[in-house]
C-alpha cells in the first residue's frame, strides 16, 4: 500500500467543512492557526476584477519527507503505507521538522507540547480498515480523493490516469503525494491558480518518480507508534 490523495481544487467552495471535520474527529487543538488541514487563498485581479484562488492544503505526506530525517527521536516517522506520522509522546519539540517542511504543514499542539500534523486519519480511520479520511467524507463538492497508489484498479489511480495533475514545490525534491488536479477545461482558472512554469504530470510520468522514492524510503516504514 502507498497512500496518497488527489485534490480537485477547482471544486473547493471554502465552506471549511473539511477543517471542522478534521478538528472534531481528530481532536485537534482549537485555534485559527492550529490546523491540520486548511484552505489558503491567493488573491489577484484580472482586468481589474478580483480573483481568488482557493487551495485546500495539508501535509503532502512526501514519499521522501525531509521532516523525518531531521527528527532526533524518531517521533516523526513513516507509518505503513508511507504516511508521515508524529508521535507526540516522544516529540521533544525541537521544531526541526517544522523548519524542514516546505509546506508549513506542521504546528505545535500546545495541549500536548508537541508537534502535530495531518495523519490522513491513519490512527482514527485507516488502521480500522476504512478507506476515507474525515475531510474527504465531509466535503460537499468532492474535492478530495484518498486512495492507494499501489491499487491500479482503485478510484485514485483511475482518476490520476484520466486527468493531468501537478505537485507542490517539486524542486524541493520531497516527492509529495498530494496531487492537484489541473483544471484542464478552464484555462483561465488554471492559469491563475498555478505558476505556468509548474511541471504538469500524467500518472505514467509521475509513477517512476514515486516508485524510486518509495524504494528508497520503504525500509523505514513501520507500524504505528502507540
Amino acid at each position, binding site marked *: 500500500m502507498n497512500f496518497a490523495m488527489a485534490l480537485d481544487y477547482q471544486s473547493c467552495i471554502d465552506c471549511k467543512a473539511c477543517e471542522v471535520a478534521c478538528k472534531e474527529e481528530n481532536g485537534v487543538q482549537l485555534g485559527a492557526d492550529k490546523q491540520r488541514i486548511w484552505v489558503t487563498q491567493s488573491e489577484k485581479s484580472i482586468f481589474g476584477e478580483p480573483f481568488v484562488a482557493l487551495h485546500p492544503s495539508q501535509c503532502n505526506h512526501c514519499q521522501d519527507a525531509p521532516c523525518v530525517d531531521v527528527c532526533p527521536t524518531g517521533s516523526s516517522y513513516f507509518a505503513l503505507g508511507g504516511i508521515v506520522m508524529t508521535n507526540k509522546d516522544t516529540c*521533544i519539540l525541537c521544531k526541526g521538522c517544522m523548519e524542514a517542511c516546505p509546506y508549513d504543514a506542521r504546528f505545535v499542539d500546545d495541549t500536548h507540547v508537541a508537534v502535530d500534523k495531518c495523519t490522513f486519519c491513519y490512527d482514527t480511520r485507516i488502521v480500522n480498515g476504512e478507506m476515507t479520511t474525515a475531510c474527504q467524507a465531509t466535503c460537499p463538492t468532492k474535492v478530495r480523493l484518498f486512495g492507494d497508489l499501489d491499487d491500479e484498479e482503485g478510484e485514485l489511480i483511475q482518476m490520476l490516469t484520466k486527468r493531468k495533475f501537478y505537485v507542490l514545490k517539486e524542486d524541493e525534491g520531497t516527492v509529495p503525494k498530494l496531487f*492537484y488536479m489541473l483544471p484542464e477545461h478552464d484555462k483561465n482558472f488554471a492559469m491563475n491558480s498555478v505558476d505556468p512554469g509548474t511541471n504538469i504530470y500524467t500518472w505514467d510520468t509521475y509513477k517512476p518518480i514515486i516508485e524510486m522514492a518509495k524504494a528508497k524510503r520503504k525500509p523505514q516504514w513501520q507500524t504505528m507508534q502507540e
Partner: protein
Amino acid sequence: MANYAGIEINAVSLKSLLTSKAMYVAYGFLLFALFGVIDVFYERYFLLSATAFDAGLAPGSREVAEAMRAAVFGPGGEVKREAPWSLYIVNYMYMIYVGSGIIFIVAVAELIDIKLIKKAAAGYLTLGLAMIIAGLFTIMMDLNVLHLHHMFLSPRFTSGMWLMLPLYIVYIPLVIFEIYLILAHKDVWVKKIAVAILILSLLVEFVEFYVQAKLFDMNSARHLWTTYPVLPLYFMVSSFAGSAAMMILHTYLVYRHTDRSKCAGLMSIIQKLTLYTVLALGAYEATAYLFIDKKWAEIILFGAFKYYFYAYLAMAVGIPFILLFKDFTHNGYKILASVFIIMGTYLGKMIFVYGGNAYPMSDRFGVGFEKYSEYEPVRDVIFFMPPLGEIAIVVGSFGIIILLYKVVDTYFSVSKMQEH
C-alpha cells in the same frame, strides 16, 4: 588551601562567594531567567485552554464562550508555524559557537606555543565552557524537557539534532579535563598527555562546527541555510570574531589591575587575532551573498532586514576594523571594538536565524503568497517578536556565565596566570 588530585583548591567560605560583587550581578541576570522559566513553563505546562468538550459540558456558559474565543483568536501559543526557530536558537548558537571558538583559539595557541595565551588559558577555557553551558540552558528551555529522555530511548543517529547529544557528552568533559590539565601542571604525566588531549579537542571542535552546520543544512526548505557557502566555515569565521572580542573583554576585566604588563601583551596579541577574524568575516559576507538564494538575499540585502544587515556589518566588521587597524595604545579602543563585535555578531546570528524563516513557505502554487485563514493578512516577510518569557530566559543566560565563571575562579583561581 587544599590540594586534590594535583590541583589546589582555595579555602573560601560560601558566604564570601555568595556575597561578592560579581555574584550580585549574576543574581540580577538570573532573576530574569527565573521570571522567564516560570512564565514559559506556566504557559507550556499549566495554562488550561478551552476545548470543544468544555462547550459540550457547559453549553451557554459565558465564561466558556469567552475562553473559546481566546483559544481560537488568541495569540496561538509560543511557537508560530511560519517561524519555529526564534531567539532561543539565536542565543543558543551565539553562546555555543563563541564559547567553542574561545576553546578552539586557546587550543591552537597552546599547540603553536603562544606563551601569554597559554598562561591565561584556564581562564579563557572556563569562560568558553560557561558560555556553552549557558547556550545549553537556553536550548533546554526551548525544548519540551519532559520528553528529553527520548533522546536516549529512541535515538535517530543520523539527525543533526540528535548528534548534539553525544557531541556535548564528549565535548564538555574534554574541556573540563583540559582545564584540569592546566591547573595540575606540575604533574609529569599531565605534560605527557597534554598534546594528545589538545589534538583530540581540536578534532572535536571541527566535528562540532560540522554538526552545527548539518543541523541547519538538513532543513532543505530554508534556502538561506542551505545555500550559505561552506556553512561550517562560516560558523567558524563568525564565531572566532565574537570569541576574540570576548577574550579582549575578559583579559581587560581580569588582568587590568593584577598583571598590567602581561595584560598589555595579551591585549596586543588578541587585538591582532581579532583584526584577522574581523577581516575574514567581512570577506566571507562580501562573497556569501553571491551564492545565497536570491529570494532570501533580497529580503536581507534590500528588503525588510536591510537596516539590520548593514548595522551588523558596521558593528561586527567596519567599526572594529577602524578601531583595531591602527595600533592605539589606549585600551579603550580595543574594548569599544570588542563591544561592537559582540553586539554585531549577535545581530548577525539573529539575521541568520530569523532570515532563514523570513521568506514565507506559503508561495506553494507559484501564484503569490497565500494567507492561511480569513483572520490573517498575507505575509510577504515572516518575523514575529519573541514572547517576554523567551527574552527573559535569553537575558538570564548571561547570569549563568557570570555565576559559573565566578564559582570556578573562586575555588580554582583559573584567572591566575599559570606556568605550564
